[in-house]
C-alpha cells in the first residue's frame, strides 16, 4: 500500500498506524501523529486503519521561538 508519510510517498505493509510506526522504526514515546490532517492520539493508533493514499504526519518536539 502506498502512503504519503511526512510528505513523501512510501510503500508499506502495515494496516494500522501503530503498525506503521513499528515498521518504520520510530520511537513511539515522543511522537504526535495525524492522518489526513486530523490528530490520531497515541491511544487511537492501534485502531487507526490505514487506506491507500492516506497522508500521515509524524511529528516530534523541536526548537521553536
Amino acid at each position: 500500500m502506498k502512503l504519503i508519510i511526512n510528505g513523501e510517498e512510501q510503500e508499506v505493509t502495515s494496516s494500522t498506524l501503530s503498525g506503521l510506526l513499528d515498521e518504520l522504526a520510530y520511537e513511539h514515546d515522543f511522537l504526535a501523529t495525524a492522518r489526513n490532517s486530523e490528530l490520531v492520539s497515541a491511544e487511537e493508533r492501534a485502531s487507526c486503519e490505514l487506506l491507500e493514499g492516506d497522508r500521515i504526519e509524524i511529528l516530534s518536539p523541536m526548537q521553536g521561538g
Partner: protein
Amino acid sequence: MLEFYGEVISSRLLLGTAQYPSPKILSDAAMRSGSVILTVSLRREAAGTGAGGKFWDLIRQLNVRVLPNTAGCHSVKEAVTTAKMARELFGTDWIKLEVIGHHDSLQPDVFGLVEAARILCEDGFKVFPYTTDDIVVGERLLEAGCQVLMPWCAPIGSARGPVNPDALRAYRAHFPGVPLVVDAGLGRPSHAAQVMEFGFDAVLLNTAVAKAGDPVAMAEAFSKAVEAGRQAFEAQPLDPRDMAVPSTPVIGMAVFE
C-alpha cells in the same frame, strides 16, 4: 503579580529555544535568563533518529513550563491541527498561536488568527495569540476566549525594537486588565526595558539571545532589562517635558554683579 490563565508566573521573560549554537548553550542561556516558560515547536521526525526525543529530554531537565507554538502555519486548519498535536505531545493546553499571513514579513493573518483562536478556545486550549498592535483585533481575540494577548513590536527576527511605540502605549492603555506580552521584534535589552516601562507584563524573545555573540550573557542582560523596566514602570516614571526644569533649587542663589 503576573498570571497567565490563573497561573502565577515568576519571570517576565519568556524565551525561545531555536537557533542556539549548541544544546549546551541553549540550556545555559535558558538557566541564566531565569525564564520559567520556554517556547517549543514540533516538526516532522525522520525515522530512527530520535532527534525530537533528545531535544525534549534537554528541555525537561530545565524543569520549566513549555509553550508550544504553531510557527509556520499559514491556515486555520494547519494551526488547529498543529495545536492539537502539540497538546498530545507536550501534555499542555497552552498554545502560542501563530497563523502567518506572509512568507516574507511573517505578519500574522489576523483574520485566520481570530478564527483559529475561537476554535481552540472552545476546545479548551489556553491560547497565547501572536498578533499585531491592532486594538480591534485584540478585542476580537478576547471575544474569542483568549485571556492573554501577544502583540509584536516589529517583524519576527528583525531585532528592530518597538517601531511604533505610540501604538504599543495605546494598546497597553486599551487593555488595562489583560496580561500583555510583547512577542517578536526585540533586538536589545534596552528594547525590552522600553516596552516593560510602557507597562507590558512580559516579553517573549528568541533570536536576540540565540544569535548574540554570547547567548548566555545576553540572556542575563535581557533578564536584568526586563526586571529594570518593570521596576521603572511600577515606580511611575516622569512624562517628557518640552522645556527645561532646573533640578538644582534656584532659591537662595548668591547674586554677583
